[in-house]
């Protein structure tokens, strides 16, 4: 049996090879989340990092703002198959945030306000690959897109870029987060189409 759909030609776009398999471009910024949008006043906001030894580091909003910021321009890829090219952000590199954290952990379990979690290898947060981002396209990051601050890990499917980021738990073993327990991939590389567990 042929899988070819008779009469379907589709619309190919020239994306210079920047579009991972199975993705299509969008000019909008769709939202994927599981529940209501949490609202976190900045004077109550904090970011924490906890190591496998139980050491806890915290940053207030003012302390985060005082750290050196980057302005990355990156392509983002959502598991629901949209991609958006050349998005611009402002945020603090995880290299900066984790600079003085002593850990032997190989994995991170990221916690969000609202209870969402997601897991990823610690090395994917390092070497200029990940940020705690608080501006998008020159504006404060809106709550529905994860504001006041979200994780930005553009080389993985975008659910790994946890919205409303609250804390990063450094752990010795990979521990599935919210979507990962529901069948999504533990790593989530868009170029290998790692959408679901087993892909």
């Amino acid at each position, binding site marked *: 049996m042929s899988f070819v*759909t008779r009469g379907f030609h*589709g619309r190919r776009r020239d994306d210079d090879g920047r579009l991972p398999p199975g993705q*299509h471009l*969008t000019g909008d*910024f769709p*939202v994927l989340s599981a529940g*209501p949008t*949490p609202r976190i006043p900045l004077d109550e906001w904090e970011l924490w990092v906890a190591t496998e030894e139980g050491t806890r580091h915290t940053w207030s909003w003012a302390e985060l703002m005082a750290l050196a910021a980057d302005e990355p321009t990156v392509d983002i890829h959502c598991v629901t*198959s949209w991609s958006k090219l050349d998005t611009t952000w402002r945020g603090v590199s995880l290299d900066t945030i984790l600079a003085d954290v002593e850990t032997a952990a190989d994995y991170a379990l990221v916690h969000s306000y609202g*209870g969402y979690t997601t897991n990823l290898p610690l090395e994917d947060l390092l070497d200029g690959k990940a940020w705690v981002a608080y501006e998008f396209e020159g504006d404060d990051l809106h709550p529905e897109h994860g504001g006041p601050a979200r994780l930005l890990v553009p080389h993985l499917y975008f659910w790994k870029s946890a919205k409303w980021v609250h804390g990063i738990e450094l752990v010795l073993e990979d521990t599935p987060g919210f979507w990962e327990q529901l069948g999504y991939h533990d790593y989530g590389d868009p170029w290998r189409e790692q959408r679901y567990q087993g892909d």
Partner: protein
Amino acid sequence: MARAAIPGGLSARRAWRPARLLERRVETASASTLVLEVADWPGHLPGQHVDLRLTADDGYTATRSYSLSAPAEGDRVEVTVQRVPDGEVSTFLCDDLQLGDAALLRGPVGGWFVWRPEQPGPVLLVAGGSGVVPLMAMLRARPADGPPFRLVYSVRQPDDVIYRAELDALGRAEGVDVRYVFTRRGAGEDDGDERPPGRLRAADLDAAGWGPADAPTCYVCGPTGFVEAAATILAAAGHDPARIRTERFGPSGS
């Protein structure tokens, strides 16, 4: 959270299966239901979706996600597709795919935005536009002696209501309540619609009658702005955020 049991083993769910169009029902001017025959379909839960892939004769493919609109009947599955203006896939599915034509399908996908018949408590469904599709699957899966269900369905005008006749019939059944919220043009007072047209308001959900004390599981599905507004109203009314489940779709769902 325990790992949720979902029909079909992992390897079964990620396999692309050949599908064939058995029937297309025009629901509204812009939405059609496709009934597909899918070989060895593993079954699904109401609220889940599928990935549907079209393949051109030179190998080019385009894949989109669509919500399942009804419980499976053996190898027959149904999706309802809202035609997105200029959408690459949705317009082809609504206008060009012919009976008997082939596509590829995989799933079911999603284990969070689902209703399980054994789940306790009443169910509040809040739909914006074609966000009604996965909620319809839940309504259709509700057994006659199931928990109380209430649907608040926000849509531009009466002609845009998907599944109108069936929803009206369901709304007369014991334990099911269906209300429409028209945002642009109402049905008119002559038809008993006294609500002035306008976007979903807190009163529309209050009028549906369940407060936080009744602990309904709330399922909210629709465009991003609608889901933001509805989920915010529910959370502000005191519903436990853990019982407000949302599914949003953006203009990317073409």
